[in-house]
């Protein structure tokens, strides 16, 4: 009997708290979105599961000696996992569309206004009692507007690790919601005529250009923004392995097994930061609101920039492609294509949107570097 009593006292029922239960519900919600709604499942399945695991009472999976503790400290605290993901993403990215039309980089730059405006907004929130965001916190939150998971996780782990869970969840959730968030903004800011603009076909790009492109990006980073070197460097390494054509076995491994293994652990580690005491706070609410704001402003800035460029440029630019500047590769480019087809069923914008789309990845890595250089 004593044994059964001891066993009872070791059960979860006897140790469950309401906050932990709420966070387990949040984890289940993420799993639901991932599995039933197919929202960024590659990340939300491990994050949601990690959220459940970390909130299981008694098991202490996120405390020293627990699996999630090790995974977090080895992979996130050190910055290693987001950098490996970035290397894999680099190996998966084709910059042809951007090299063929480099002006698209301006759209990737404009969309980063979502980040910096949100940074200001996060500090504004401090006027509301209960919010006390530092500049570090505000920067880490604002990077959600970069629409780039690994960049957000890397920056948050450096600037504001206690907000990492909420920031990562917001980033991936809004990336999944791109098809819902962006179209109304895009339609609101553009006329049907603008949305129908056809763009000239892209020129062919040589192998040499594709090999030298990542090296040039690295050179500029080295010269002008070395704080972005870890992120941009690993991204460029992945892309160079892809384009060089001489290390295909390394490139394939970076695109497949290595990124898969890292994704599982990264997701679990991010989920482990969804502990009740860290997530069930008024800050999380603020982060969710600010994240949505960041995405919206970024989309709008991209579209506006494209409208301006269309006016001053001789080559027509469909303003919709500006929305792809937030990155969220390749979802945002697909959304552009879809909204464009509504106005002109013969106008396929997908490849034209890939340029600003990958420019947005560089843009937010650059923005992260600036924040690291100035705020850290």
């Amino acid at each position, binding site marked *: 009997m004593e044994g059964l009593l001891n066993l009872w006292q070791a059960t979860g029922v006897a140790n469950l708290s309401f906050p932990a239960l709420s966070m387990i519900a949040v984890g289940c919600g993420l799993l639901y979105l991932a599995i039933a709604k197919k929202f960024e499942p590659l990340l939300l399945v491990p994050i949601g599961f990690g959220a459940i695991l970390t909130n299981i009472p008694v098991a202490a999976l996120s405390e020293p000696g627990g699996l999630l503790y090790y995974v977090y400290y080895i992979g996130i605290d050190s910055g290693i996992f987001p950098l490996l993901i970035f290397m894999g993403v680099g190996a998966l990215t084709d910059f042809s569309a951007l*090299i063929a039309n480099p002006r698209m*980089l301006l759209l990737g730059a404009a969309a980063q206004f979502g980040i910096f405006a949100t*940074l200001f907004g*996060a*500090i504004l929130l401090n006027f509301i009692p209960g919010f006390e965001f530092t500049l570090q916190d505000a920067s880490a939150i604002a990077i959600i507007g970069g629409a780039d998971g690994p960049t957000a996780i890397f920056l948050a782990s450096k600037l504001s690790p206690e907000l990492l869970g909420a920031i990562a969840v917001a980033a991936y959730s809004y990336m999944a919601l791109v098809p819902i968030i962006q179209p109304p903004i895009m339609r609101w800011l553009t006329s049907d005529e603008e949305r129908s603009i056809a763009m000239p076909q892209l020129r062919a790009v040589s192998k040499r250009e594709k090999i*030298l492109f990542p090296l040039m990006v690295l050179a500029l980073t080295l010269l002008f923004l070395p704080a972005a070197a870890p992120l941009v460097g690993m991204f460029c390494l992945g892309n160079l392995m892809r384009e060089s054509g001489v290390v295909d076995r390394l490139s394939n491994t970076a695109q497949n097994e290595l990124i898969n293994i890292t994704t599982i652990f990264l997701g679990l580690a991010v989920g482990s930061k969804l502990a009740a005491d860290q997530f069930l706070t008024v800050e999380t609410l603020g982060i969710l609101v600010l994240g949505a704001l960041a995405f919206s402003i970024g989309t709008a800035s991209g579209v506006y920039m494209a409208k301006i460029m269309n006016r001053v440029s001789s080559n027509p630019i469909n303003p919709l492609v500006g929305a792809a500047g937030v990155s969220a590769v*390749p979802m945002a480019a697909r959304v552009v294509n879809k909204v464009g087809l509504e106005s002109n069923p013969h106008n*396929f914008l997908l490849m034209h949107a890939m340029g600003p789309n990958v420019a947005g990845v560089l843009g937010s890595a650059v923005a992260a570097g*600036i924040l690291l250089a*100035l705020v850290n």
Partner: protein
Amino acid sequence: MEISELLAQAANLMLTGMVGVFLFLSILIFAVKALSKFAATGQELEQPNVKKPSAKPTSTGVPAAHIAAISAAVSQFRQNN
């Protein structure tokens, strides 16, 4: 720290950040254009949208459905242009 002071810093950061991002990516535009001129000295050309055949074409990190959608779009694009 006073919120007003923080706000000033945030505004400054906003300005510096956007200027920095635009500067960096603008330099990149010129660099890419220079690169293209340099590379134009006779090299085999590839179609920009043609994915190079990969050893494991089905696992490219983006959901297969996306790839299918993109491929469909590309082929339609070609038929229509």
